[in-house]
């Protein structure tokens, strides 16, 4: 009997030991991701902080690293987002309203839904090829701000639609019933009751989608956003550059000085994204209190 007990005790202590070792291992694995993020941030700060100056905002790109700045790229990014926002908002939220509030559960609805989730997984560079073919060449919009904004709109639409659908789904049924009971039409119900209550959630999704667009490089390389733009775009048909493209251009140069500039540009870009994400979190918190 005592031999059996000893064997049992030994087995238990061995299993406890394995549990302890794995616990440490799992913590270590989790730490890998966090450490990588910290290394990335520290690396960029150390390279770029010294080049972060007002010149970065006021100078155009230049062949000399000491004179180069991000002015046209910052303005280009802002213009692109300004064009994108209304188009992607109307198309994305419209599609979400259709799918959640209007569509019958038939094969067409299922097809659209499946299609949206598939589109979310298409590599961004393929959207670039699409934009190059349809907007730049097919519609003769050339390498303009409008081509870039339309391409990016298609890229972020699946993200906006899915998050808007979730926001609409979170609106309680009773809200719709109450509106119908007052005699409102379906559109009056949607526009007057459902949409306002889902709006914070929708805005959160839209902001996150736009922040994705601000950081995206590959599709704009494809449609030919220029890397050397020494002027500000005057209209939607002007050629343009954006922050990630300019950063990419600086990284591709062998000189150390341009790498420091790139790091400074990255700090600006990450700062902008941080602000947008913070706004999204604030909206989300407000939203969850309302429900």
């Amino acid at each position, binding site marked *: 009997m005592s031999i059996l007990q000893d064997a049992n005790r030994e087995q238990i202590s061995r299993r406890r030991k394995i549990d302890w070792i794995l616990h440490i291992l799992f*913590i270590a694995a989790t730490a890998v991701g966090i450490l990588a993020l910290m290394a990335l941030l520290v690396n960029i700060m150390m390279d770029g902080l010294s080049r972060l100056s007002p010149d970065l905002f006021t100078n155009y790109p230049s062949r000399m690293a000491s004179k180069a700045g991000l002015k046209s790229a910052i303005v280009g990014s802002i213009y692109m987002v300004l064009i994108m926002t209304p188009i992607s908002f109307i198309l994305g939220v419209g599609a979400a309203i259709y799918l959640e509030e209007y569509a019958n559960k038939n094969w067409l609805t299922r097809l659209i839904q499946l299609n949206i989730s598939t589109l979310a997984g298409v590599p961004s560079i393929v959207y670039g*090829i699409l934009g190059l073919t349809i907007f730049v060449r097919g519609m003769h919009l050339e390498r303009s701000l409008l081509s870039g904004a339309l391409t990016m709109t298609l890229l972020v639409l699946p993200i906006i639609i899915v998050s808007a659908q979730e926001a609409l789904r979170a609106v309680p049924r009773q809200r719709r019933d109450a509106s119908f009971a007052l005699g409102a039409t379906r559109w009056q119900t949607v526009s007057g009751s459902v949409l306002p209550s889902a709006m914070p959630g929708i805005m959160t999704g839209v902001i996150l989608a736009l922040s994705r667009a601000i950081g995206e490089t590959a599709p704009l390389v494809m449609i030919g956003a220029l890397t050397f733009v020494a002027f500000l775009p005057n209209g939607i048909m002007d050629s343009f550059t954006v922050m990630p493209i300019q950063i990419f251009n600086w990284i591709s140069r062998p000189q150390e000085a341009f790498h420091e500039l790139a790091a400074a540009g990255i700090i600006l870009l990450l700062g902008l994204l941080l602000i947008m994400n913070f706004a999204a979190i604030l909206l989300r918190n407000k939203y969850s209190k309302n429900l």
Partner: protein
Amino acid sequence: MNQAKERPGITSISFKNKKTYILDRAMPLFLFLCAAVSIVTTIGIVYTLLSETVDFFRKIPIFDFIFGTNWSPLIAPKSFGILPLLSGTMMITIIACLFAIPVGLASAIYLSEYAPTRVRKIVKPVLEVLAGVPTIVYGYFALTFVTPLIRIIFPDTGVFNALSAGIVVGIMIIPMVSSLSEDAMQAVPRSLRQGAYALGATRFEVALKVVVPAAFSGIVSSAVLAFSRAIGETMIVAVAAGATPKLTFNPLESIQTMTGYIVQVSLGDIPHGSIEYGTIYAVGMALFVITFLLNILAQWVARRFREEY
């Protein structure tokens, strides 16, 4: 509160406000058109890729494209075998997955089964920040931090190499694996865990023998999605992996991926309609088909092997 004034229960003829009536009738059509944009986008992608690719295969035999072992479309003697680009992409993807899947899965197990709620609430969003960092930033990180680190260990590593790009792509997809896997594990009912604990199982036994098998479909689906994401990743490889398409198994050498090639061509000035221009579409088509099939596979795995409780 305009709608409150409408009279309830009466047929649509009694709408006093004509605008309300027209809006109510017209809106569904407009909203449907918004939803149809997604279908049109897919058709657009398939059509543009297909039409140019078919054109390309009229000039270059499809067999040479798929099985050719030499990719040199810009410099004579020209040759259009995609295998070197495919092997470059696969090398990056496999390095990334070898790194990200174990780390992501272990993080998911830690967050779901071990971590106190307070730790989880902080760590999970921090890991998800990794997914929001623009890929061009990762490219910079690979080139200026990871590559020099590798060169300390292996001094004869090239400035551009597959290992550095692969590891950084791996870092990028960690949150995909960890977040989606953790969601799948959280969906496993508490009663299963409590049953195992009641039988005297330790935490790792509960995690590895109960929770992971129960959440297996979600875990596999997250891994497939991460794999597909790594294949389509562009800027990291364009910056850090190099631009020399070759069939090699040495991760310390400079290579080129499918996405990297497309970027290289579009940076240059290739005349519209030439064979070189057609290569973008042929390579893009290959990329689209591979990622599309993987995404379908991920959805199928998630649905087909889901354990319902």
